[in-house]
C-alpha cells in the first residue's frame, strides 16, 4: 500500500502508455500497469485486456498491493492495415475486443474505486476515430466506438464526480508505427501542419492534463495529432 494516489495504465510498458506512466509518476502517482508484454517493470501485470476475467483478477491484485485506483488510462492497443474486404471475422473481432472491450473491462473493474475516490478515466482513442482512416476500417471503427462509450459513460457517472475523457492522438512516434509505415514517410509528414509525428510525451502531457488538472472537463476529446485532423 502507498500514501500516494494510485493510477492504472493499460499498455503501460511501451509507447504512449509508457510516456503516460512517466508523466503520472512525475505528478505523484504510484502507477500499476496491465500489459500483454509487460517486461521487467515492477507493479506490472501480464494481461490481455480483452479477457474480462483476467482484467478483474489483475485489478484486484493491483488494488491489494497498491491501494484504491483513482486514475485509469486505457492505452493498450495495436494497429494493422487491411482493405475492408480482407478484414477477416477474427481480425474484426480481435480489434473490437481489445480496444473497445479492453476499455469496458477495465472501466467495469475500476469504477467502484473511481467513484469512491472521485477519480478520473482517460481513454486513448485515435485521430482516425475523428477523421476516419483508409484501409484500416476495423481500427477506425474500434477507436470511434471508444468516443461513443466515453461520451456516454461521462454523463452516466457525472453525478458521482468521476470524469471520463479521451485523447485522440495522431500519428505518434511509437513502436505501433512500423519502420515502413506510410505514416512515417516524408511525403506524408509534409502534409501535417506541424510537419512531424506527434511525440509520446506530448500525448502523455494531454493525458496528464485530463487526469490531474481538467476538473471541469468530462466527455471531452483532446486531439493531439500534429494538426492531422483539425
Amino acid at each position: 500500500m502507498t500514501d500516494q494516489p494510485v493510477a492504472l495504465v493499460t499498455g503501460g510498458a511501451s509507447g504512449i502508455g509508457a510516456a503516460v506512466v512517466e508523466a503520472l509518476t512525475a505528478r505523484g502517482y504510484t502507477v500499476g500497469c496491465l500489459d500483454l508484454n509487460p517486461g521487467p517493470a515492477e507493479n506490472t501485470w501480464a494481461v490481455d485486456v480483452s479477457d474480462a476475467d483476467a482484467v478483474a483478477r489483475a485489478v484486484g491484485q493491483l488494488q491489494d498491493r497498491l491501494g484504491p485506483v483513482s486514475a485509469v488510462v486505457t492505452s493498450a492497443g495495436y494497429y494493422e492495415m487491411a482493405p475492408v474486404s480482407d478484414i477477416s471475422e477474427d481480425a474484426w473481432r480481435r480489434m473490437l475486443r481489445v480496444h473497445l472491450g479492453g476499455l469496458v473491462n477495465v472501466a467495469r473493474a475500476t469504477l467502484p474505486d473511481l467513484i469512491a475516490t472521485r477519480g478520473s478515466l482517460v481513454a486513448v482513442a485515435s485521430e482516425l476515430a475523428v477523421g476516419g482512416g483508409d484501409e484500416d476500417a476495423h481500427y477506425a471503427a474500434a477507436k470511434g466506438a471508444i468516443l461513443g462509450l466515453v461520451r456516454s459513460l461521462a454523463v452516466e457517472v457525472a453525478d458521482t464526480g468521476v470524469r471520463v475523457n479521451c485523447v485522440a492522438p495522431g500519428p505518434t512516434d511509437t513502436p505501433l508505427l512500423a519502420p515502413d509505415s506510410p505514416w512515417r514517410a516524408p511525403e506524408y509528414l509534409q502534409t501535417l501542419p506541424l510537419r512531424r509525428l506527434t511525440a509520446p510525451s506530448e500525448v502523455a502531457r494531454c493525458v496528464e492534463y485530463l487526469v490531474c488538472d481538467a476538473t471541469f472537463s468530462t466527455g471531452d476529446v483532446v486531439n493531439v495529432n500534429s494538426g492531422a485532423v483539425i
Partner: protein
Amino acid sequence: MSTDLRGRVALVTGAARGMGAAHARRLAAAGATVAVNDREDSEALSALATEIGGMTAPGDVSDPKSCRALATHVAATTGRLDVLVANHAYMTMAPLLEHADDDWWKVVDTNLGGTFYLVQSVLPHMRRTGAGRIVVIASEWGVTGWPEATAYAAAKSGLISLVKTLGRELAREHIIVNAVAPGVIDTPQLQVDADAAGVGLDDIHRRYAEAIPLGRIGSADEVAVAVELLSDFDLEAVVGQVISCNGGSTRTRA
C-alpha cells in the same frame, strides 16, 4: 501543472477581472512575465499586475492601431512576446430583428475582429524568437449556437474557424494556435444574467448547474488550466483544436 514559462512573456486581454485575471495568475505562477490588458486602466488592473509581478497594457483591442501599439509596448518593455491569450469579450443578446445593427457589429468586431488584429500584431514578435503560443478564448455557444445570441455565437464560431485556419497556417513556424471553449463559468457576467432574469445569483447558479452533467458551474481557474496547457512550449502537437471546459455539456462537439 508541469508547465515551465520562466523567461517567457505573455499578453492576456480582458484581464481586469473574471477569467482573464485567472489566466494571468496561472501563467505568472508558471513563471511567465504577464502583461495584463483591459479596455481602460483601472485599480483592479494595476493591482493584478502588481500581485503577479507583471505589467499593465491597457487599450481597446477592437481598434487595430491600439492592438499594434499594445504588442509593441509589451515587447519593447520586456524584450519579447511569446504568448497571446485573447480573452477579451463583449456580449449583448437580442432577438435577431431587434438587435441594433451597430451593436450587432460591435459584438463581431470586438470578439472576432479584435482577436484577428491582435494576432497580426503579435506575430512579428513571435517570429523573431521562432516560436509562439496563441490561445483564443471562444465559447460553448460558438460550438452549439444559442437563441438570441446570433452576434456572439457567430463571432465565437468565427474565432474557432480562425483558430483552425491559423493552426494550419502557423504550426510549421512553431507558432501554435488553439482555442478554449468555456461553458458556464462563475464570473461577474453571471450577475448580469441574474439581474436580467430578475433572480438572485444563487438562483442563476442553480439554474445553469441543472443543465451541466457535473452538476455545477465552473470556476475561472478551471478554464485557466486549459490556457496553461495550450501555453506549454513542450507541447506542440495540439494544433488548431478546441478544448472544452464545460462540465460535460457539449461532450466534445467542436
